[in-house]
């Protein structure tokens, strides 16, 4: 799109985009480290994730302030207004992703028993999937690429499906050996958090759609996370 007659307005929008790219990179790193910290039970790495969350929170505050200031100064219209609103919303999604990653890292401290190999593999796989989703949606935002954003939006069901199977797997472990209940509960929360991170990535994708098209995505997203409506008895029979 052509530049504004007032160049400083372009600078404002550009710097917001740069701040969001930095924040997005940080969130990606936090997510990767938290999954690694948990599956390898690396407490040092977990602590560094917990500490780094403050940086993400500070970035959200800075982006929000910058966006509000720009709205006040420039009275943006149409695509500019959307760009500013969307930057605030994406910053808040990224902040939530940071919180969830921190929560995953915290759980490395919560249990001492080793994680069964199959489970840690599933956990890593889910981490990889959500990382890929987050990376792709951030790239889509940087390029204002709706097609790629929609790809992220559609692929969230893969994460949901994986979460579903891990949920069942964890239940099986717990049924077989009650001593596993502690570890498995923590892992259940951790994987739920990673699944939520996927949801935030799709929120960002929806915002990219709105940013580019000027209207909200009303279509219902395919959902595969059935754990909240799965009766306990049906999982035992498996």
């Amino acid at each position: 799109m052509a530049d504004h007659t007032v160049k400083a307005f372009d600078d404002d929008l550009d710097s917001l985009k740069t701040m969001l790219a930095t924040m997005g990179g940080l969130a990606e790193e936090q997510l990767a480290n938290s999954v690694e910290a948990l599956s390898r039970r690396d407490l040092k790495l977990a602590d560094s994730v917990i500490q780094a969350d403050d940086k993400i929170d500070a970035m959200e505050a800075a982006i929000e302030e910058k966006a509000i200031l720009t709205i006040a100064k420039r009275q943006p219209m149409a695509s500019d207004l959307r760009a500013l609103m969307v930057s605030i919303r994406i910053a808040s999604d990224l902040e939530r992703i940071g919180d969830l990653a921190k929560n995953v890292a915290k759980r490395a401290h919560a249990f001492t028993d080793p994680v069964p190999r199959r489970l840690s593999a599933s956990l890593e796989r889910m981490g990889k999937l959500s990382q890929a989703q987050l990376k792709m949606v951030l790239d889509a935002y940087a390029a204002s690429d709706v097609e790629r954003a929609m790809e992220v939006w559609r692929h969230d069901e893969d994460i949901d499906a994986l979460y579903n199977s891990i949920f069942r797997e964890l239940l099986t472990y717990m049924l077989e050996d009650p001593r596993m209940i502690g570890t498995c509960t923590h892992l259940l929360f951790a994987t739920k958090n990673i699944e939520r991170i996927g949801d935030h990535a799709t929120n960002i994708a929806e915002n990219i759609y709105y940013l580019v098209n000027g209207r909200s995505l009303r279509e219902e997203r395919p959902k595969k996370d059935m754990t909240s409506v799965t009766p306990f008895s049906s999982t035992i029979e498996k």
Partner: protein
Amino acid sequence: MNDMSFKTVLTPAAPRILKQRKPKMTAKEVNVYYGEKQAIKDLSINIPDRAVSAFIGPSGCGKSTFLRALNRMNDTIVGCRVTGEIKVDGQDIYDRDLDVVQLRARIGMVFQKPNPFPKSIYENVAYGPRIHGLAKDKTDLDRIVHESLTRAGLLEEVKDRIQQPGTSLSGGQQQRLCIARAIAVSPEIILMDEPCSALDPIATAKIEELIHELKQNYCIVIVTHSMQQAARVSDLTAFFHLGVLVEVGDTDEMFTSPQEKRTQDYITGRFG
């Protein structure tokens, strides 16, 4: 009004406001020429009753020219020619048999710079009803003057000095006096050509509040350079560029997601 021929306009759907309010004015394939120069090109638009329509666009885009065509103000300009059809309530305003004076009593106008007559506040408002013979007697005329001043939100401020010259008022008050003068003859339509561009923000806010009140009863058309003002006061927004009506639509949509790139560029400050 189903045969809306928006030849130059790209809107996906007819504006919602035109479904809620019947069109008061309809223009069809209007062209305006100043001598050789064509100022308005093949313009068609429906203007809703009891709503505010805003014309926006860069200087020289034809928005004021078109506004003036709506009450035949261009008649007085030598070499100005209007073709096409402009109707008010289905009646062609360029009909040869039509009395222009009567037409302008139905279509009031407010200008960029407040232009009160060099007479008292009272006389400024009483002048129109008097020459059009709208008042039965002095009491009736007093009533019309007071009502008009009240509607224009000015009575409280001037009731103690109603015999003082209109020019003694502040700029914002003068503009509201001009609006009171315009509504004193009970028009159906009020055209406003940049009514706030000479006013400070508080006076502007008062005029905007007034416009909001007036749209309950009148069809209002406003030309403005301030995009924010158009966004604040209008229901329908029409974007003009180089004599062409580029896009017309509900204000809500025009300022959040315009369809046309030229509209987008203009309202986001990328050209002009």
